[in-house]
């Protein structure tokens, strides 16, 4: 990753009117944003299917499962990457957040492990957690809703 790549990505964002690009590659982590922070409501598109708890499913058990229930009024904190969801910094600690907690854009809400790297995921929105949609150690897709938030 050098400045050239960043330039390309920015061009790409402008050309395609993307509001956010986030890339995690080995050690490198890049987050680009344009305009207001992305807040996708279920009206803007069906949420991704939620993978099952087992991060390495048996060949017989497909990853896809019925999507988590969502309501039009909610907004979501979505997974910015494919990986494994962890609700707490370590098995002995309490979860980063629970239903009813207020979050600020920079509040860390969970960890997602990808390629042996644990990534702190921030809320990116301001509001109150209404539901937790992913369970600890669950495999998650890109764009998958992790938390429902009543914005404020």
């Amino acid at each position, binding site marked *: 990753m050098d400045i050239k790549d960043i330039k*390309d990505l920015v061009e*790409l964002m402008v050309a395609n009117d993307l509001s956010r*690009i986030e890339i995690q590659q080995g050690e490198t982590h890049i987050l680009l944003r344009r305009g207001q922070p992305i807040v996708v409501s279920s009206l803007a598109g069906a949420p*991704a299917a939620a993978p099952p708890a087992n991060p390495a499913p048996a060949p017989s058990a*497909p990853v896809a499962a019925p999507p988590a229930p969502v309501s039009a009024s909610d907004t979501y904190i979505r997974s910015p*990457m494919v990986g494994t969801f962890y609700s707490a910094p370590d098995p002995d600690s309490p979860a980063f957040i629970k239903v009813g907690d207020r979050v600020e854009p920079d509040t860390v809400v969970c960890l997602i492990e*990808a390629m042996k790297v644990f990534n702190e995921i921030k809320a990116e929105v301001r509001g109150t957690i209404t539901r937790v949609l992913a369970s600890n150690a669950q495999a998650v897709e890109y*764009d998958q809703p992790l938390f429902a938030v009543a914005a404020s």
Partner: protein
Amino acid sequence: MFNRILVANRGEIALRIIRACRDLGVQAIAVYSRADRGAEYLNLAHDAICIGGESPGSSYLNAAAILSAAEITDVEAVHPGYGFLAENATFAQMCRDCKIEFIGPSAESMRLLGNKVAAKKLAKKSKTPCTPGSDGPVESEDQAVDLASEIGYPVMIKAAAGGGGRGMRAVHNEASLRSHFRNARAEAENAFKDGTLYVEKLVERPRHVEVQLLGDPSGHVVHLWERDCSLQRRNQKLVEESPSPHISARTRRKICDAAVRLARAAGYYSAGTCEFLVDDQENFFFMEVNTRIQVEHPVTELVTGVDLVQWQIRIAAGEPLKLKQEEIEQRGAAIECRINAESPEEDFRPSPGPIQHLFLPGGPGVRVDTHAYSGYTVSPYYDSMIAKLLVHRPTRDEAIAAMRRALAEFRVSPIKTTIPLHQKLFEHADFLRGCVDTGFVERTFGPATWKPA
């Protein structure tokens, strides 16, 4: 054989790989970007997982996301298809470091053959004819000028790391050489982060003839005869056929044997293609080796009856390549048209958007590879090819008649496609006589020819 592999690509080639998996009884896990969510071909995979946003950089080019997907779905191998990460040696190495097999050649031979200068060296060593030129990087404009006057104009400026025509310039005299040298280097810098250039003799009115190869790690390498891809527009292939109408049986043998020698010298395995330029006297010159499955591979599948994608997977799974060279026949004539969502009338501007009606051709001798269907939306984020239309008939003339028939049956609306161009091509005397070169399409069907009637 593998139980489960990840298909690290999209569109028709993802579907092609999923089909090969079904035929082999292997579970295919598809990955998709937000732009491809809901595409029908994803339902044909054992499972599908979203790996990123619309931009290739965040999804199909995102090695970390793809490997994360591979980890959580517990696959044993990754098939990269073509484009995106298919010829990225680093990605191949990353996969294998994660104990996930990369379905393709070794990272070493990818690196070796991915570098034009190194590849040309190897070609010479293995007695594969090359175009006269700098046998290494050209450091300066002046060096380029000296070399050019030595081998004679016209000459080609090429980027060592190049591809897709970027960093390439044809120059016919010293003045234009000097003026193009600098911007070719700049373009190469931007495109490949490597400004190394080299210079070689320009083969005029060249035919593009490429040889399909299969090999296994034990060193057993066979060719599956050639494809002629002379019908191109701006270095993008439009029509591919086998056998080549341009070469004699004798040249065919020589060019195929040369390709096999080169592959052996490179310790090459899996599927690959060795590209050549052929002039009017049937002299052929090595161009490059593509270390991936190619868009036009079905042309070879039709004339040989060999399933190339299945063999890629088998070889990656450790199966020995059972094909014997003398058993591989080139039967009949096969032709492929690439149907792109582009408007020929508007200088081939991409024409993305929803397809309301799609009627696909069928019947005798027709093969269609497409991920599109009535109701599918052609995404603006990726390349514009929506279908590969192929015919296979006993003779080239019959194949051309069948392609005309199939093109007439093919209906796509409301988006624009390249079908009208293909229909003109298949009526043109020069193509019917089988004497066209890589400049034919641009000379004959330039913007002027598309003036509204």
